[in-house]
């Protein structure tokens, strides 16, 4: 399989701080790729650069064979590379249905959806797999956190992306709430062949979900490998998992 996303030597400085320092990695089409690292390691900043919200100082980002550096976030999204936000960003004044409708009004989806009934069907399909059906007509402002997290993923999914970047979709959720989102991610990956890139701190669920991981600390990649290799990596243990952290996953 080919690489759908290639990140090379990415550097971003904020004043004196290097938020990402020479980050290089590849994501293979169809895989579920994980990014791990302590708070402030630079994970969100990495996403911001890939999705076009921040312009890197140096380095290149190749998506689907095309250099996307310098493209606006909306252009990148329309090419099929879509992200979610760590802090959920619902369209507060709109209902859940309208939230999903807005996302289908993009140039990309206008090509894929030709008629109103088709649009309705698509939105209902997305709402269905994301378990949002019962709140379709609720103002998103009134939703509890669990639903907001689902909505965040649903919005991204409803543009039918090739690659989906998920920034901590489980944060703030209980074990029972994480489960449905995990399922959605797997479904998207297996049924719709969406490549997943996932940032998460919830180790247990994270490790169960991804095939391959890079670990980042202070903006640098400190390890790369399968979940098993990562939890046993000395550097990762030292900087992130802490003493005996490996047990968390192994047990």
């Amino acid at each position, binding site marked *: 399989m080919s690489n759908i996303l290639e990140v090379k030597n990415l550097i971003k400085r904020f004043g004196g701080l290097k938020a990402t320092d020479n980050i290089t990695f590849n994501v293979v089409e169809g895989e579920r790729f994980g990014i791990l690292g302590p708070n402030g390691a630079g994970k969100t900043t990495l996403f911001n650069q890939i999705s076009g919200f921040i312009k890197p100082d140096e380095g290149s980002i190749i998506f689907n064979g095309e250099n996307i550096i310098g493209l*606006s976030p909306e252009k990148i*999204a329309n090419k099929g590379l*879509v992200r979610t936000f760590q802090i959920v960003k619902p369209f*507060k004044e709109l209902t859940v249905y309208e939230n999903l409708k807005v996302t289908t*009004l993009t140039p990309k989806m206008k090509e894929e959806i030709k008629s109103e009934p088709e649009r309705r069907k698509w939105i209902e399909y997305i709402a269905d797999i994301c378990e949002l059906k*019962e709140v379709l007509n609720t103002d998103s402002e009134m939703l*509890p956190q669990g*639903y907001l997290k689902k909505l965040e993923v649903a919005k991204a999914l409803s543009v039918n992306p090739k690659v989906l970047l998920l920034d901590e979709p489980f944060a703030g959720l*209980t074990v029972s709430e994480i489960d449905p989102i995990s399922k959605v991610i797997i479904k998207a990956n297996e049924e719709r062949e969406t490549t997943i890139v996932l940032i998460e701190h919830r180790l247990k669920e994270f490790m169960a979900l991804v095939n391959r991981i890079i670990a980042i600390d202070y903006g640098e990649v400190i390890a790369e490998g399968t979940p098993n290799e990562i939890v046993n990596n000395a550097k990762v243990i030292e900087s992130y998992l802490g003493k005996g952290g490996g047990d968390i996953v192994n047990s």
Partner: protein
Amino acid sequence: MNRLKDIRFILIFIGLVFLFIFPVLSSDFYLINILSIAFIYAVYAGSWDILSGFTGKENMGHAAFIAIGAYLLGFVSAVYSIQPWLSIPMAAVASALFGIAIGVPTLRLKGPYFALASLAVASIFENLTISYSEFTGGEEGIFGIPFLTPGPTSDYYFMLIFSFISILILFIAGKSNFGLILKSIKSDEDAAKAVGIKTTKYKVTAFALSAMFAGMAGAVMGHFYGYVGPDIVYPLSLNTLIMAVVGGIGGIIPAALGGFFISLLTELLRGLGQWNNLIYTVILMLSILFLPKGAFKTLGEFLKPKNKKNKTPKLRGEENE
């Protein structure tokens, strides 16, 4: 249809029917006169809303948009005696272009920054209008503009139909996918970009639309008075803002009703002499304090049919069992 169950539409329909037959019932030219101008105020407030109410950019210089239409008409008609059928479309095009010209550089500005930028544009306009009196007539304005139609009653119908169509278009734009996208941008612009919405395009379109209707209404007003001058154009910046907010923003019709009724109110308060402005400002302040969503939006929500159930989701705690 569902609409028939909606008392709001029924009320508006009755109101419109009443306005359409009003000149037949009454020959009070004074009332006809102030109603005619109230229609134009409704368009000012509605056109303000499509930009500010839908994208959250608080425009404090709407008069600049109105001035473009009104002065363009004034200037060409002073030279060529242009008739309304030509001048109004001209005003539409010029204002829309001007809206784009203002929209593009100020796209990124929000809150007080945008408020000041728009205020500055209107002030710059006002200053230039006064200084370059060769073209604008300075403080005396431009007079001798051809009247809209030959008589007050036909003026009335012209303005009623003009504002009805304008507000309908703005309302449909607001209700359509376009309006939905504007609201999503207002809620969270980054989130809209992240899914691929071309936010710039939509924001600039909102500017163009807002300016276009404001400019057309300005031109209609110019033809109605046969005159365009700073005294009737520039106070509109703040008046429009006040009317729209007191009416209720983000839905076109509440704002337009605000424009219509407040314009009537100020005219009717004139009988009170010195007290009228005082009363007007007190009403304004009280309505902001006690009707936070705006008078007509609050009323509208009260009258809204309740059959569409808004399911409130269960809290997570309950769901766990």
